[in-house]
């Protein structure tokens, strides 16, 4: 009896293993067959599809990529992107998950380029992933467009990029913009506090913000900063610690669930009755705050994105198509993804070649470098890091919720031009802020 049973398990085990091996082998063959040239412009899209960054950033970005790719393939976009696909070639998007850390992302990036033979990669939210991918992109000579990650170290360490570009803005811009907005709208405040997630993003944001505020508002004193660990979710102790210092403004680089939890809890505990909160990533939860965020809270979108995007035919088309498909307006990560793909299309078409051909990575990167293109968020100049980093204005505004319609809007919008908030080439953001923004041209 026992013997018979173990034989059955053994056979079952072998069958299972055999099936698994066969499946694996067939997928590998399928992968090879698929990688053959098919005349399409294949783009790898890498963004968070799982984990905490998926909800607020990754999924809206992936959705935006689908909307834009579908629209371009149909030739449905308004000018100057009315032509079909990229350079006449149909776009084929390969979407993969960014979760899992930098080592895995380097592996998957190589798989995209060498196995799936993508013509370009657009993606990366995590700064750690961007830092790890940039040298690999150069090594493999693979055209790569970083659309969201904000680290200032991306192009300062890797001094001579050729194939990597960033159409999103440097995170220092967010905080310089926030400091300028406060100086313009609340010139009389004297006490500022902060709460940041204790990881690279939060640490860098607070570092840049305190340096910038010391320049724009020299009278302001920083009275408190709390650094809870990322994804903590409960901020009772931190809110108490902030409350006793009676700040007039609380700066936070929180995002996603942490940001919503903090706003909800700080509002309930009365911290936000006396203090105005500045949320540098606030726009990503515009539709979800409802009456939980007090009116007048200052929110940003890391550039002129999402609800801050200027009115133009491209953005009207994008907002409408996105809203029709996903029944909510695109937030800033969605706009940034759309911008990155449009930038790629503009560069590839500038690189030329016959209709329907896919230009080489060298040709596209030469055309991309230092280019100016129209995007859903206005005109973008690839004007920093030797023509590899985008320069755009940044906007901040205040939150306004209408309980009757259940809709949130943004008021008192101020936009600072790119040259007002972006350090010139050859200067680190640190040194530029400390020197008092030399050469800044503000409108």
């Amino acid at each position, binding site marked *: 009896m026992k013997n018979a049973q173990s034989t059955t398990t053994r056979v079952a085990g072998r069958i299972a293993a055999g099936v698994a091996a066969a499946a694996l082998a067939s997928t590998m063959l399928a992968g090879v067959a698929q990688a053959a040239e098919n005349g399409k412009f294949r783009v790898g899209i890498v963004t968070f599809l*799982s984990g905490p960054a998926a909800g607020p950033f990754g999924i809206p970005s992936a959705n935006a990529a689908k909307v834009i790719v579908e629209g371009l393939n149909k030739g449905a976009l308004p000018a100057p992107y009315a032509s079909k696909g990229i350079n006449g070639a149909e776009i084929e998007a390969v979407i993969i998950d960014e979760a899992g850390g930098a080592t895995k992302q380097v592996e998957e990036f190589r798989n995209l380029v060498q196995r799936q033979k993508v013509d370009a990669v657009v993606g990366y939210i995590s700064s750690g992933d961007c*830092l790890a991918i940039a040298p690999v992109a150069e*090594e493999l000579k693979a055209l790569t467009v970083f659309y969201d990650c904000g680290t200032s170290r991306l192009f300062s360490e890797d001094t001579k990029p050729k194939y990597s570009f960033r159409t999103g803005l440097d995170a220092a811009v967010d905080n310089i913009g926030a400091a300028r907005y406060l100086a313009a709208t609340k010139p009389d405040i004297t006490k500022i506090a902060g709460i940041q997630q204790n990881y690279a993003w939060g640490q860098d944001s607070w570092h840049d913000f305190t340096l910038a505020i010391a320049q724009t508002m020299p009278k302001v004193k920083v009275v408190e900063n709390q650094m809870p660990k990322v994804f903590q979710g409960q901020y009772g102790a931190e809110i108490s610690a902030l409350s006793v210092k009676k700040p007039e403004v609380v700066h936070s680089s929180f995002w996603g669930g942490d940001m919503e939890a903090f706003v909800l809890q700080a509002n309930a505990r009365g911290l936000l009755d006396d203090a105005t909160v500045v949320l540098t990533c606030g726009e990503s939860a515009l539709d979800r705050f409802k009456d939980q965020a007090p009116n007048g809270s200052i929110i940003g979108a890391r550039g002129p994105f999402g609800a801050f995007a200027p009115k133009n035919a491209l953005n009207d088309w994008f907002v409408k198509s996105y809203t029709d498909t996903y029944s909510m307006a695109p937030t800033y990560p969605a706009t940034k993804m759309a911008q990155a793909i449009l930038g790629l299309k503009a560069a590839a078409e500038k690189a030329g070649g016959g209709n329907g051909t896919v230009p080489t990575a060298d040709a596209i990167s030469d055309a991309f470098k230092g280019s100016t293109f129209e995007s859903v968020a206005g005109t973008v100049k690839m004007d920093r890091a030797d023509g590899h980093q985008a320069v755009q204005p940044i906007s901040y505004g205040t939150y306004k919720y209408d309980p009757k319609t259940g809709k949130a809007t943004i008021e008192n919008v101020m936009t600072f031009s790119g040259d007002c908030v972006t350090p010139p080439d050859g200067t680190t953001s640190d040194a530029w802020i400390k020197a008092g923004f030399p050469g800044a041209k503000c409108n």
Partner: protein
Amino acid sequence: MRLDKTELALIGLAVVLLLGGLFAAPGWLIFLLTVALAKALVVQGVVMQMKAGLVSFGQGLFYCVGGYAVGMGGQFLGISAGLVLLAIGVVAAVVLAMILGLLMTRYREIYFAMLSLAFSMILYGVLVKSQELGSTDGFNVNSWTLLGQTISGGEQATHAVFVLTVIAAAAVAFFLNRYYRSSVGMTCEAIRENEVRVEYLGLSPRWINYANYVAAAAVSALGGGLTALATGHVDPDMAYWTTSGEFVFIALLGGTGSVFAPFLAAIVFSLVRTYAIEFLPNAWQMILGFTLLGIVVFLPKGLWSLFTRARVDAPVSAAPSSTSNTRTGGARA
């Protein structure tokens, strides 16, 4: 020195891998194999302790130490010799393990697992708060040299790390194979079975575990250093508990039956994962979960039991008399 079958197979496989990798395999596959083999070294560290009945949920600690030693040695000490960087990582891990081991070896079972996890999370916490080291973003590894040759990107770098990793993996497996068959190695299994009896034999389970723990740390740090050289980037995630969990996952996938098992499991794991990501970008974790579930249900001794079962079965049907070699790596009827 007489080589047994396993050792001959090891050398043969290493040569086949090297030749196949250098002349036939596409770039992505070479890289995938490099990272898989480097991670398999960390898994070897986990398996070494599993043999003695200890499950380390914090092997990421030494993986991270090895990786950061390579990164920091290049970044702050200005050392560019790849082999020296790897050696620094191994030495650092050994020193750390010699200190932690004094405490760790007093614990067993879940207490050992939790304590090992705690130490790796302490390193994670320290790294996250070190802004000079890039906090969670980590930093890139400088270009390095191998025996005087500068390795600066391109196919050459991929191949150099691949060769280095295959040789390191084969060497470690070679010594581990001898170690497992030595009296100390055998004692590890005895400790798992019955620690009190081992003490009655006049041996000290604690010090054997200690030596085992330190050796496992060295092997894991080597894996971390090779991973850092291959990917060119280190970050605190290397010490995060999910990374350590992945090593335990791979160890269970392979089983403890042979020194080949962790390598096989790491390669299968990487291939399953990369194709799962490609074909099911929204549900790739589910595929990995089902894979482990399938292994646990159908192959409780890991992937390697496919091979040992075949070996046990064969004599029964073909030649019933020759059943002398039935060491099946802990598979008990």
